[in-house]
């Protein structure tokens, strides 16, 4: 059998239980271990690593649903969606949709919302660093250029709007926050808008007011300074002040988006 075919056969066995016997035909038994058991060691090892990975990506969901449910759901997910990238940090995005489709969670979709937040935290953490603009250069712009200015959030920024109090639920499950809310007292139906972004080695996660949310969405949609002035009128200087001081705005351009 060509090596490539042999490798595919083994990979199939790792992520499809019913292919295990087929792959085992090419493996010798040794000592007390049958050939299927020997292939099974590789399957268990691959699943174990990916289960650990999913547990570390979704620690609050893990706590919310418990070890047994999480383990069973994760093993099904691993079989359905094995890694397609050699970079482990790419793995696990699809777990959110997998949870969303789980019949047992249809009455508790707030858990899926928390999973979305946890994946966004992971994605924000692994975003490539970027160079911040020098805002002193704004001084030399003409009036026309000023009206065409467009601003950017940090590349790692995620704006998440949820009909569930995802930020409070997440906080309630963090050991290192002494003033964390008690989970039992959280109103799960409270809608929350959350901004996530990474600043060097620190991940920021904060809830936004309705005004700040609308403003940052407009920034993300690449509205020009002229359009922002139309939309937010005399609130605009204040909205920018807060956003700049909080580190929500990272760069600017005078070039219209393509």
């Amino acid at each position, binding site marked *: 059998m060509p090596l490539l075919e042999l490798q595919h056969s083994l990979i199939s066995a790792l992520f499809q239980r019913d292919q295990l016997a087929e792959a085992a035909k090419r493996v010798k038994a040794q000592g007390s271990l049958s050939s299927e058991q020997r292939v099974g060691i590789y399957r268990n090892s691959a699943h174990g690593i990916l289960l650990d990975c999913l547990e570390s990506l979704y620690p609050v969901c893990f706590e919310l649903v418990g070890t047994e449910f999480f383990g069973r759901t994760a093993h099904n997910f691993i079989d359905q969606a094995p890694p397609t990238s050699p970079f482990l940090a790419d793995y696990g995005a699809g777990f959110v949709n997998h949870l969303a489709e789980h019949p047992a969670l249809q009455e508790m979709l707030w858990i899926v919302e928390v999973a979305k937040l946890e994946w966004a935290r992971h994605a924000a953490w692994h975003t490539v660093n970027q160079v911040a603009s020098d*805002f*002193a250069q*704004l*001084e030399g712009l003409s*009036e026309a250029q*000023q*009206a065409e200015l467009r601003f950017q959030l940090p590349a790692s920024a995620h704006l998440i709007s949820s009909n569930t109090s995802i930020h409070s639920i997440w906080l309630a499950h963090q050991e290192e926050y002494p003033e964390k809310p008690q989970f039992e007292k959280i109103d799960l139906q409270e809608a929350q808008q959350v901004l996530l972004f990474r600043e060097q080695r620190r991940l920021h996660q904060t809830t936004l007011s309705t005004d700040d949310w609308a403003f940052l969405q407009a920034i993300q949609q690449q509205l020009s*300074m*002229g359009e*922002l*002035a*139309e939309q937010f*009128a*005399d609130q*605009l*200087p*204040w909205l*920018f*002040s807060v956003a*700049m*001081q909080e*580190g929500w705005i990272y760069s600017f351009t005078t070039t219209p988006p393509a």
Partner: protein
Amino acid sequence: MQNKQIITATLMAIGLSAALSVATAEDKKVETEKCTGIVKAGMNDCAANGHSCAGKAAKDSVAGEWITVPKGTCEKIAGGTVVKE
């Protein structure tokens, strides 16, 4: 306010906030040093002792595993040795 006035006021607000952020960042700059002999297993900052990188220290308080601390702190910690660079 007219749009032109709003834009002028906004650019002033951005300029002030940016200047404030730079000043705060300057204030926050702290001189640091590498400190060995005090690191808990798995909590080291970067490569040393034959392993690849941060978080790989296998035992507590091993010489050669370091973390970054504010300058002057290391010599105040029992077992701490400043790494000469």
